[in-house]
């Protein structure tokens, strides 16, 4: 008997989408459309709140890529938020550049700073890397406090001519019939939305790519990934520099919106790293969905509890500790584990069909 005819032939395909991902993508498109059109009917307070939500989410996605996937737990991402902000101020106030152009330049400058920084901090491993990045952020803070042209230790403000020179402001004013400050907010809102969608798209496409597969392997077990031929160091370096560039652009946008910068605020570990870590961990580290949930939870807490000041921060710290101890995969991990959900399918699943020889059920 010919063994080939007796054995069922196995056909398989690699799939990423599951039953909810397509409806989720459709809902996502509708949400995006509503968010784009929001300024035509929403009030200014909501617009400002959403700008805050967007940039915290974008920062959380960057930190998640760094810590959740590449295993680079940084406590020093405020270095690049502040750097991006300061580059924007320098280029627009001293260099006279248009703020819209200054944002991508801030990203390039951040990447250029990240490369030598990485050469130093990559000498430290694991938890020591974390504190090393914090030291570097302090060096940036103390360094910018010495730059007298940008206000030294007390900081400086953007002039109204800079903040109003953003292209499109006049257009928004006539189109939506609003005053200049509101038009500025709307322009910042669209920029923040574009940046957060861009960050999400970048992270998603990266994780779907070949490099993303390597990153997922590093997240799951670094030694095993290395033994399968993943070039750990260069992937980590690339992720560090890329997230620095994105974080720098987000920082530039944040300080364009704030219009006032000082070293202590721009390089604040609480604002730009602690909050971001809590968003990622409470939502669920190592997933794209987690930081989105975390950012919404954080926004609601910030909105309704921030008036309690120190108590609010104590609560946030306690919540972070409890999640880490009892639900280390975060809120999204709890949901996804129970209902088997993925909104951003990045995991490759093997679908097999046992079929008789010659007959394939693959469609």
């Amino acid at each position: 008997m010919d063994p080939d005819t007796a054995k069922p032939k196995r056909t398989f395909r690699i799939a990423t989408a599951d039953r909810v991902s397509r409806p989720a993508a459709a809902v996502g498109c509708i949400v995006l459309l509503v968010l784009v059109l929001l300024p035509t009917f929403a009030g200014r307070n909501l617009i400002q709140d959403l700008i805050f939500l967007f940039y915290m989410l974008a920062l959380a996605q960057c930190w998640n890529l760094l810590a959740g996937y590449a295993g680079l737990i940084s406590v020093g991402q405020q270095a690049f938020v502040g750097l991006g902000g300061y580059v924007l101020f320098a280029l627009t106030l001293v260099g006279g550049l248009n703020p819209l152009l200054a944002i991508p330049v801030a990203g390039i400058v951040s990447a250029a700073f990240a490369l030598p920084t990485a050469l130093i901090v990559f000498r430290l491993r694991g938890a020591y890397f974390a504190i090393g990045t914090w030291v570097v952020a302090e060096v940036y803070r103390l360094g910018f406090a010495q730059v007298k042209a940008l206000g030294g230790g007390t900081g400086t403000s953007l002039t109204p001519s800079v903040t109003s020179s953003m292209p499109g402001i006049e257009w928004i004013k006539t189109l939506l019939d609003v005053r200049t400050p509101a038009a500025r907010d709307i322009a910042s809102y669209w920029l923040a939305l574009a940046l957060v969608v861009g960050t999400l798209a970048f992270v998603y496409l990266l994780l779907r790519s070949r490099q993303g597969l390597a990153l997922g392997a590093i997240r799951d077990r670094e030694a095993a990934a290395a033994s399968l031929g993943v070039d750990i160091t260069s992937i980590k370096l690339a992720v560090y520099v890329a997230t620095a560039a994105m974080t720098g652009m987000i920082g530039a946008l944040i300080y364009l919106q704030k219009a006032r910068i000082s070293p202590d605020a721009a390089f604040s570990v609480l604002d730009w790293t602690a909050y971001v870590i809590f968003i990622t961990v409470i939502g669920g580290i190592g997933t794209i969905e987690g930081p989105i949930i975390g950012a919404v939870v954080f926004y609601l807490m910030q909105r309704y509890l921030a008036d309690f000041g120190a108590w609010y921060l104590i609560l946030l710290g306690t919540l972070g500790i409890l999640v880490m101890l009892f639900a280390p995969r975060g809120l999204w991990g709890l949901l996804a584990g129970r209902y088997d959900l993925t909104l951003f399918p990045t995991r490759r699943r093997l679908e097999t069909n046992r079929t008789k020889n010659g007959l394939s059920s693959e469609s």
Partner: protein
Amino acid sequence: MTGLLDAIIQGILLGGLYALFATGLSLMFGVMRLVNLAHGDLIVLAAFVILAVTEKLGVDPFAAVVLAAPILFAIGFGLQHLLLNRTLGRDLLPPLLVTFGLSIIIQNGLLQMFSADSRRLRSGAIETASVSLGGDIAVGVVPLLTLASAIAVIVALNFIFYRTSIGRAFRATSDDLDVAQLMGIDVNRTFATAMGIAFVVIAIAALYLGLRANFDPTIGPARLLYAFEAVIIGGLGSFWGTLAGGIILGLAQTVGAHIDPEWQILSGHLAFLVVLVLRPRGLFPRAVD
């Protein structure tokens, strides 16, 4: 020239304080591989505990440390036993995140209880007493005591580590956790004891922090960075290396401040980064990490 010589002497003495900050961190890392992001805040917390004891009982800060030490040992023991032991494992994130959360809780808890005002430990005449070294150079008694205490703490820790049974347990768990457990060591208890001892070191560090300068609830993170830098400059695995690291950091800061007062902290950080580039394993490494 006298100015520079003075800066060097002050830097060595300041290094004693940084060595005290760093020894606790070094102990935690050495025994349980724990990098404690709340270390600086714990030092500040201990300073407030000492302050509260001096105010409530009307005793001298030195006496208050003796009274506070058992309390702090118990807090450290409990913290490790109930919370931190649960976070230790292959994954790096839980201990980092939990201690980061603790740092925020301690800072804001102190802010609620003691307000943001700067405080200081008062100890009468000894605060301003100084010893003349000839010429124009005089050194304060408190800085001298700080360095002497750092040396005494290191001698005591080395005695515990190399001459007692609990020290043997510390070294065993540090070398190989699994084998240590097979030999009947209760790891949770060993780690909790190590944290208790680290808290006593933290109390001593807090005493000199409070005697030498003002403190308030927000200064913890900077002390963590100094402690960390001293540990890395000195090299992992040796308390004497940590002392050397503290002194190098202190020297970098005071010599930097001698050149330009605004450069004090920055030059300390830069010295750390230079050591990291030239000698990534520190100047006097012993442990292989």
